[in-house]
């Protein structure tokens, strides 16, 4: 009895800290019954609508009674969406629940919690953007729980090490995608192979435009390749580098294109153009940094270096056109700017050398004058009276 009381007490504490209690909704909101009844048996009488603990498969429909009713919900939050249930029904989770009658598949409480449901804006909520990967991993990272389903369980480990995972979980960049960023939340499902570019384009829209206009789009459609994922991967997307284009260990072009083929020649040409620009920028940067340590003003070449770097970023993005001429043209523009920055750096270095020569010369002249004056002073004698 004491244990039951303790469990109940925890439920009450959790509930009071949750979003529903804050809006004035009591236990009867989900469990039914009559909260005004004086006697417990009257309050929990099925005659007055008491349903007790709802069955797991009934939970989505139970939550939807309120959350799918725009008229009811506007009293609490006029801006809240009410399409969660309809989205859930078409999600991977919803389909398994309704069609396959999978008793372990996620329902509302799996992600949002039961009595301690909090607004997803609260950092302690299980659906707060930075907590979502951990919430999803509770099931999707548990190989025992996921047994019998044809999906891997290492997504979380891969995501944590990916560029997105690092941005969200290590750097705290809340604009970086969590699981829901790509899969959706209530409508969560595996993206269609032909829709991957659209999923990535939620953030990387320019790259998508370039990809769609490129010859790769038709090839990917023909072979039903999952677009961006073919080169960049999915959960373990790493920070891109030029090595991704052509390199022994990381190169992705060589996975499909054999050496000497048109595709591989294009990859090598693009890599050469980008390498040439990177090399010019590095050279100029070294010189500019050197003269800056001498205390010289390097604002102008630094501005040019920023422009050259912009061109480098632009040429790297243009790889998604898979057209070497476009990449080379922008890379060449960047290289011209980088060379100008290096020339300015050389000019500043020459100014510095001129100053140094002037400094040495003037100090020598002054010291010689001082020495001559000292000789003159000595020749006068001390004349101390």
């Amino acid at each position: 009895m004491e244990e039951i009381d303790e469990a109940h007490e925890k439920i009450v504490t959790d509930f009071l800290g949750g979003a529903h209690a804050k809006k004035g909704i009591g236990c009867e909101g989900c469990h039914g019954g009559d909260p005004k009844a004086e006697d417990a048996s009257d309050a929990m009488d099925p005659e007055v609508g008491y349903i007790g603990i709802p069955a797991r498969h009934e939970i989505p429909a139970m939550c939807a009674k309120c959350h799918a009713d725009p008229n009811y919900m506007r009293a609490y939050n006029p801006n809240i969406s009410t399409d969660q249930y309809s989205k859930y029904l078409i999600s991977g989770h919803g389909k398994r629940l309704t069609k396959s009658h999978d008793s372990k598949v996620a329902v509302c409480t799996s992600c949002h919690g039961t009595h301690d449901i909090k607004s997803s804006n609260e950092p302690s909520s299980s659906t707060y953007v930075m907590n979502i990967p951990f919430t999803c991993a509770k099931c999707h990272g548990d190989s025992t729980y996921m047994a019998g389903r044809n999906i891997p369980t290492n997504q979380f480990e891969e995501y944590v090490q990916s560029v997105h995972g690092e941005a969200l979980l290590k750097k705290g960049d809340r604009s970086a995608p969590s699981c829901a960023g790509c899969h959706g939340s209530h409508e969560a499902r595996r993206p269609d192979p032909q829709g991957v570019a659209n999923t990535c384009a939620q953030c990387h829209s320019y790259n998508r435009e370039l990809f769609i206009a490129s010859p790769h789009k038709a090839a990917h459609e023909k072979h039903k390749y999952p677009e961006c994922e073919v080169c960049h991967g999915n959960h373990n997307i790493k920070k891109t580098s030029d090595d991704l284009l052509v390199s022994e260990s990381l190169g992705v072009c060589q996975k499909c294109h054999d050496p000497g083929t048109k595709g591989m020649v294009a990859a090598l040409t693009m890599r050469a153009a980008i390498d040439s620009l990177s090399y010019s920028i590095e050279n100029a940067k070294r010189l500019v940094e050197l003269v800056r340590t001498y205390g010289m003003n390097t604002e102008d070449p630094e501005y040019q270096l920023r422009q050259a770097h912009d061109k480098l970023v632009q040429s790297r993005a243009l790889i998604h056109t898979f057209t070497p001429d476009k990449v080379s043209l922008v890379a060449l523009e960047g290289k011209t700017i980088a060379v100008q920055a290096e020339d300015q750096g050389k000019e500043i270095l020459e100014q510095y050398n001129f100053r140094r020569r002037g400094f040495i010369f003037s100090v020598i002249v002054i010291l010689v004058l001082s020495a001559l004056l000292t000789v003159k002073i000595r020749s006068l004698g001390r004349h101390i009276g």
Partner: protein
Amino acid sequence: MPSKYFDIAKISRYLHHRLPIGETKEILKSKEVPVHKFSLFYYLGGICLYLLIVQVITGILLLLYYSPTEDSAYQSVKFIMTKVSFGWLVRSIHAWSSNLLIGALFVHFFSTFLLKAYRPPREFTWMSGMMLLLICFGLGFTGYLLPWNELAFFATKVGTEIMSAIPLVGDTLKEFLRGGPNVTGVTLTRFFALHIWVLPLSLAMLAGLHLLLVQRHGMSRPMSVEVKQKRSMPFLPHFLLRDLNVWLLFLAALITLSFYFPTHLGEPADPLAPTPLGIKPEWYFLFMFQLLKLLPSHILGIEGEHLGILGLGLIGLLIFLVPFLDRNSAQGKKSPLLTTIGWTMLAVFVALTLWGVLE
């Protein structure tokens, strides 16, 4: 044979007849500089004068390109630093000579105080010197804002804010200097006017009076050496040549400092940006800044900062009037209390400044 148009003797006679050249020569010829173990301190006045001349010359050169408005000040300094021939050198020498000048003034102040050179009849020489020190503080404070960079902007903001702690007139003085409640382009214009007109003009008049008084009374001989043999050397040419030699060495020092530690341009001032962490005033204000930081928020019900400013003002006033307060020195007797006060002030000044710099 003298030229028809360039007869030096004739020109000399012409000038001698119209200007007090002869009298000046006589005065300088008869001028003597005492020689003793503290004679080195006699060069400080000359060093200050020399650095002041460097300030005026480099200041005028900077004025050729500087533009004192909110929109153009930073850009004009950038232009001086990057496009004007030797502009970087002129600006660096101007900044370094101002720092060396204030440093030399501090040494001059402490040496004069400790050697009791303020004793009669040099009371006014002392007082004019103190006022010159204050004017140089003002020149340093107003000049610091003129490049209109981030550091200058916020240092001025903090510096003028401290002024509001002066009882009764603090807020009015702060608003007067800022030209409003905040540091804006109006403040820049005011500081520019103070920096190139009001303060230099006051300084020129006071420096003239100070030099006149030094000529009138001659160099003070410390009491500890006064009773011993009174040795001296002629000012012309012995001391003057030594002075010139020191000036040459200071010129070499200025060029070296400007080359190895050039003054930077900094980031342009952004009044909307938050105050950067660790903002500090120039080194010569650090002792006051650190002292005010040491005080508790309230002392005997009065705000600590207000009391601190009042205390510093009172100490300044007592130092200003020290020739009249130090009766022992005036009568040629030893004054151990003032010597102890002098050394304490020096120790506190050095300790607080070092603390501020290293913090």
